[in-house]
């Protein structure tokens, strides 16, 4: 297990290296003079020079890159041009909103997606199966940000059940948080729900064909025990794999959904930075979300290996 853990940790290093390289390159690919574009047409030569120095644009590319890595190793993502404060602090402050949204959506997607997939797989090709799978397909074909707007129109404007937007911290008022997060998390979760339902159904069908399931039925166990416990336990492994991937997709979706519901998370910070060309914030946001995603998948992999010894030998 120790060997596997070390190997897995080491394999994250080149990935994170490429991630940081891409984040660095974001500034390098901007066409034209970055500083004058950021400062606007009214900037004086002095302001431009200061901005160039702040962004390190006055140095050669290689030196900038070394500076970038040096700062990264100290946990320093640079200084936001607009907020005039450290990017790390600005992001960390907003991270709980984004992570809360992402993981609430993930929970919704797993619970309802797996349930739907199991219901569909129990009677393959029945009306229930076809209906559930059709819904799953429609679900994963809808744009999530648009669904958010539809929810606002339906649940806030027409029915008046939920607030149109705004944020309440979880620690202050858990129920208020849930009310504020219900629509964004629901809109965000639907795509992944559809994917998980399809995946659960497929692996459930595989499992239900196996001998031990027949044995369980033969010894007289009720259907729900066989499906829920015997088969369910075996479906969990692929579900967790997909859920690990889902985290990344949900993190990306959250960036856009926060925009729709005016949630003060990392996504709004990044989109705001994009609109005002605050590149250090864009770089930091990219880097941090990717790192979270890599770490989540690392934890998922290690959990597996701890639970299922076969994994340690497979790879």
């Amino acid at each position: 297990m120790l060997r596997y853990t070390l190997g897995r940790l080491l394999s994250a290093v080149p990935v994170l290296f490429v991630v940081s390289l891409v984040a660095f390159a974001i500034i390098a690919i901007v066409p034209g003079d970055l500083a004058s574009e950021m400062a606007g047409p009214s900037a004086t030569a002095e302001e431009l020079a200061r901005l160039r120095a702040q962004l390190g644009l006055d140095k050669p590319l290689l030196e900038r890159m070394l500076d970038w890595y040096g700062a990264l190793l100290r946990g320093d993502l640079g200084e936001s041009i607009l907020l005039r404060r450290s990017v790390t602090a600005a992001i960390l402050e907003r991270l709980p909103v984004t992570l809360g949204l992402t993981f609430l959506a993930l929970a919704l997607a797993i619970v309802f997606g797996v349930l739907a997939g199991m219901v569909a797989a129990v009677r393959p090709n029945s009306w229930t199966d076809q209906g559930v799978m059709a819904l799953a397909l429609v679900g994963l074909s809808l744009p999530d940000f648009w669904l958010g707007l539809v929810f606002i129109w339906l649940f806030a404007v027409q029915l008046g059940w939920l607030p149109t937007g705004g944020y309440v911290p979880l620690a202050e008022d858990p129920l208020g948080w849930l009310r504020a997060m219900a629509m964004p998390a629901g809109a965000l979760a639907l795509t992944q729900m559809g994917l998980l339902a399809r995946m659960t159904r497929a692996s459930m069908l595989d499992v239900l064909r196996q001998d031990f399931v027949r044995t369980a039925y033969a010894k007289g166990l009720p259907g729900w025990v066989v499906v829920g416990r015997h088969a369910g336990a075996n479906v969990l492994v692929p579900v967790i794999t997909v859920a690990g991937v889902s985290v990344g997709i949900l993190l990306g979706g959250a960036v856009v959904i926060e925009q729709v519901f005016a949630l003060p998370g990392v996504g709004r910070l990044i989109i705001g930075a994009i609109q005002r060309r605050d590149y250090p914030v864009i770089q930091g946001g990219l880097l941090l979300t990717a790192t979270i995603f890599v770490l989540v998948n690392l934890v998922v992999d290690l959990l597996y290996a701890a639970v299922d010894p076969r994994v340690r030998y497979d790879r």
Partner: protein
Amino acid sequence: MTAEAIAAAAPAARPGVVARALAHRGVLVGLLLFGTVVLVALFADVIAPHDPVRNNFRARLAAPNEVFWLGTDRFGRDILSRIIHGTRVSLRIGLMVVAATSAAGALIGAVAGYFRALDGPLMRVMDGLMAFPAILLAISLAAALGPSEVNAAIALTVAYTPRTARIVRASVLVVRELDYVEAARALGAGHAHILFRHVLPNSLTPLVVQATYIFALAVLAEAVLSFIGVGPPPPTPSLGGVIADGRDYMLEAPWISLFPGLAIAVTVLGLNLLGDGLRDVLDPRMKVEPR
């Protein structure tokens, strides 16, 4: 791209694959939905009842009526016409992304799968790109490159190429061990000849299915880019852009945002149905992959 074109492009397809595809209910429904969108986009100039970019302040924020079937926006522009023309932008970007990700993915996947020494470095780069949430990477790249149709396509290509590369690599790894490849090698064929004449053409079937899904993802992602404001610049009518136009009018004019979303959904649903159907027809053993 129609199902026939996709199926015909598949080199590994046995005779009758088109017939089998057309007998598949999902393929038929998908073809019907996506085909309709393609026709609408092709004949947008003829079908659109109004000019999609002409302002008409006397009719601003009009509810759906007999002149403006789906209502108008704050400039009095016809929503239906903007949606009809918007499908053009979506499909154009989708097509560019499919072509570019397929070509880049095939090349990277083939080289990585065939030459062992290059496998590690190439796939680590792909892993690194896949570590970003694809949509966030695309938004950042599109923002850095500047808002335009081509830049949106470039950004999405970078974000989605790792998927195609991985899939081609996986099938190249299988094909390179087959007997006819060894036979070609025994006959003295060079690496380039073996790779591009024998291995790659026989490794592309999974890519056909993946390309269909990538088209769907690209249409969804293009809408996000336009919604955020880093897609094709206004006044180009793009579906995501029209949704963004209606954001502040959900109370008094919800039709602005609601209808273009349906157009995206129909396009993506059609493509997903096509992808599922092609997967069934081309290789029944392939499972639903997490995307």
